[in-house]
């Protein structure tokens, strides 16, 4: 999904850079509320895991591969504001040191993966969680559904950007269809990996999972009506 230099024209790249800069500024404020004693140690680890996981391309169709984006995964584990920062750090290191994604496209890549990937993934996760049974086992499943949806959403956003400011004339319908179909397949991998990783963390330390807090709070309240001092890591 990493957009190279040369795909989008300068005005479009500047516009996505402005979106990315605004999102990072808002996230620096929002993340302060998410980064409590429990979440803080996990945030750096989540960014690092997303970086490592993005190295692992898996085959999806004849001669095509995909890799985890990790936006929904990070949002469920540490909260969406912190997730945008995690993806931004990953994309900065990839762009500056690994030449993975263009430099003029840095804002585009942060917008696609760190904003659209994170927030659509998180929104679909929350919707799925609201529909699924209220128990802890629903959290990994909802996270997987969010992860699945986030990939075609980011891919369609790229298609939209290319129609506005692409450096070559393309048929919109054909580009949208191609981006959506390939990235729906990659989304299946994203969903499975997201569910597996969130499931592993939920199994070991459910108290650390940002997206599990409401369900845990409800079940703790149901088990013990008296307010407890809470479980601390």
């Amino acid at each position: 999904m990493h957009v190279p230099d040369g795909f989008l024209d300068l005005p479009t790249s500047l516009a996505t850079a402005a979106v990315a800069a605004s999102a990072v500024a808002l996230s620096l404020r929002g993340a302060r509320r998410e980064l409590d004693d429990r979440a803080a140690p996990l945030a750096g680890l989540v960014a690092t895991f997303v970086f490592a996981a993005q190295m692992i391309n898996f085959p999806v169709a004849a001669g095509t591969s995909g890799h985890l984006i990790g936006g929904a995964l990070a949002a469920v584990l540490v909260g969406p504001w912190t997730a945008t920062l995690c993806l931004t750090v990953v994309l900065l290191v990839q762009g500056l040191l690994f030449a993975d994604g263009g430099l003029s496209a840095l804002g585009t890549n942060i917008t696609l993966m760190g904003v659209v990937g994170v927030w659509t993934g998180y929104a679909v996760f929350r919707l799925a969680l609201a529909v699924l049974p209220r128990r802890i086992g629903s959290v990994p499943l909802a996270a997987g559904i969010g992860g699945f949806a986030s990939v075609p959403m980011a891919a369609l956003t790229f298609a939209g950007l290319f129609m506005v400011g692409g450096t070559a004339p393309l048929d919109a319908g054909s580009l949208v269809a191609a981006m959506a179909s390939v990235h729906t397949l990659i989304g299946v991998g994203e969903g499975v990996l997201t569910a597996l990783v969130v499931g592993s963390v939920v199994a070991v330390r459910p108290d650390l999972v940002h997206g599990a807090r409401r369900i845990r709070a409800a079940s703790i309240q149901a088990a013990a009506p008296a307010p407890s001092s809470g479980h601390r890591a």
Partner: protein
Amino acid sequence: MSGHGRRWWALGVLVTLLVAGVLSRFASTAPDGLERVAADQGISGQAVERSGLLSYDGLGGVVGVALVLAVGLGLTAVLRRRSARSPRGR
């Protein structure tokens, strides 16, 4: 962090290093979704290729992991210090 918290965290770092340093050997080298679409649509030539300081091999992966971890922990510490000072931060 408690002892249990530290063990858990260290396990997470170990898993991440294994993914970056070892599992990366088995990563598919086929073009990714965007590269495939760009090739099919005939716009691959628009991409400006650069060469990076590091590459996604085992060593580059471990260096990248260390860098992201350092930046991530540093940023977290700065944000936590700022929110400790400002009453509306939490």
